[in-house]
């Protein structure tokens, strides 16, 4: 079962603790949720899922989280690349700033973004002049989700960029590959597992994000209302069953997606020759 001799003594003991903590910290609250939702039955849950407003909120939450995670993956790779490969004045400051979305209380980020992108804000005003509304639309939500997810994608790829030898790119060029071919055939495949990890983390964060979104979202049902917001609304209406139902649906979807990403990752790792 244990692949290699490990620094942690006693597989049995370590494994036992792992299970215990996972159980206590992750599984216990989740099973409370499942138990609570069980009263609904599969029917009840499906009925909740097909409520138009719930369905719209779930689509907005997962769709925008997906889009934000993709955008974060692209720019995360770019930023990690620039931070590792180039030295320029202010590099350290930018490097430190990458973690800010992570460290900031989400409400602070939400207020900051809402102020910036509101039609009266700096950027919002600029776009408003061209008839583009950002705050209180899905676009606003997307921006908030991109904001909170960025540190995850940068930080997962960065160590790998530092590790991959520049000579590998040069080798590719000496063999006649264009920059594009080098990028597609050499660099991206090497980074794929790390990019996927970053994607998964950014996605998970974006799906669960609440604080920084509600200020900029405007929360219009069917347009810019995210699923966590709907849960809060249901709770405020004392509809605990409905809230738990949505929560359970989110949990199931998230878990399925993360599991899928993990499987893809295992597959791409194997292609790297069993890391």
């Amino acid at each position: 079962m244990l692949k290699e001799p490990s620094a942690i003594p006693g597989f049995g003991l370590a494994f036992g603790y792992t299970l215990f903590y996972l159980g206590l910290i992750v599984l216990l609250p989740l099973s409370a949720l499942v138990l609570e939702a069980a009263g609904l039955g599969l029917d009840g849950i499906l009925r909740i899922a097909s409520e138009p407003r719930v369905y719209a909120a779930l689509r907005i939450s997962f769709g925008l989280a997906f889009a934000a995670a993709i955008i974060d993956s692209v720019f995360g790779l770019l930023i990690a690349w620039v931070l590792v490969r180039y030295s320029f004045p202010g590099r350290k400051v930018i490097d430190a700033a990458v973690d800010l979305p992570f460290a900031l209380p989400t409400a602070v980020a939400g207020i900051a973004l809402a102020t910036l992108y509101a039609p009266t804000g700096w950027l919002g005003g600029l776009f408003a002049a061209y008839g583009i509304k950002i705050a209180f639309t899905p676009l606003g939500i997307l921006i908030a989700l991109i904001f909170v997810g960025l540190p995850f994608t940068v930080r997962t790829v960065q160590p790998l960029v530092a590790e991959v030898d520049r000579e590998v790119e040069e080798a590719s060029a000496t063999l006649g590959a264009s920059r594009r071919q080098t990028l597609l055939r050499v660099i991206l495949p090497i980074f794929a597992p790390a990019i996927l990890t970053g994607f998964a983390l950014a996605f998970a964060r974006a799906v669960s994000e609440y604080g920084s979104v509600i200020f900029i979202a405007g929360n219009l049902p069917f347009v810019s209302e995210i699923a966590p917001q709907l849960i809060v609304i249901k709770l405020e209406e004392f509809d605990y069953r409905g809230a738990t139902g949505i929560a359970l649906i989110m949990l199931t979807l998230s878990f399925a997606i993360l599991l899928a990403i993990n499987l893809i990752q295992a597959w791409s790792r194997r292609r790297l020759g069993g890391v």
Partner: protein
Amino acid sequence: MDIRIVGVSKAFGRTGALRGLDLEISAGELIALLGPSGSGKTTLLRVIAGLEFPDTGQVYFGNEDATGLAVQERQIGFVFQHYALFKHMTVFDNIAYGLRVRRRGTATEIAARVGELLELVQLTDFAARHPRQLSGGQRQRVALARALAVDPRVLLLDEPFGALDAKIRRDLRRWLRELHDRTGHTTVFVTHDQEEAIELADRVAILNGGRIEQVGTADDIYDRPATAFVMSFVGDTSAIPVGFDGHRPSFEGRAFDTCLLGPHRGPGLFYVRPRDVEVTAPEAAAITGKVRTVHRTATGLRTQISPGTTDTLIEIELDSSAKVKAGSQVGLRFLRGRLFGVRG
């Protein structure tokens, strides 16, 4: 194809890595670039490859001015010291890479070519492995096959065996020489191992401070060193500051007989190899010295003798039967040596 490097200079910030360097490499030859660390060997190789562009000067491939050509257009093969294999690809895919990105032939043709190369580097059974499952020597052979796949006009190797242990180094060296004799690629390889340069190369170029000190065969370099640097860099030497009385060099005012090689006649430094000094009884000798250390080597004895009053030390190699004791006074006879004027 022959390669000409004309007046090439390259600076990184304030360090001049290459300083007005000229070199001609003839088609099909195997030439070694030998020099101390930081002398510009890698930079020169990268300039030939097109991985680095010179500040001034030209690089010609045959009659074509290749100075401005991008690395992709030069059709060279480059082997890096640390292999630089694509670790997410199998050995087969690594070797096929250049053929695929250049769209050289159909999948079957490429597979056939890769098969040939695998055979050439004796790795046929390893085609499906990933680089991390290979030893260092095997990885370097994959790197070599990968570079050879695209039929390079010139093969460039930067300390290809530098990361390997001594025994594998020697095997691979011999194997590379045989490979070169079979395929006949114009080959330039960098090393700072003299033995490797001498054993492997048709000609050796000695670099120092971004310039070429001498290019020639092993005999030229060893027996007819052009500069004091070459003399002291290749093989062991001791340098003795001498005056000159018109016929003979003199050390601390005492002239001594020797066979003077090389063109220089005048005061400067007298360079002598450890094998070219004899130890005699002190009474009869013009130069005497005190034995500082004696130690056993694989082939005999090595002793260091300090003549006169300065801190000059002379290295001497003797048969193991020779009777010298540390602390004793001995006479020195210089069979042959080479005079160089002091530079600058």
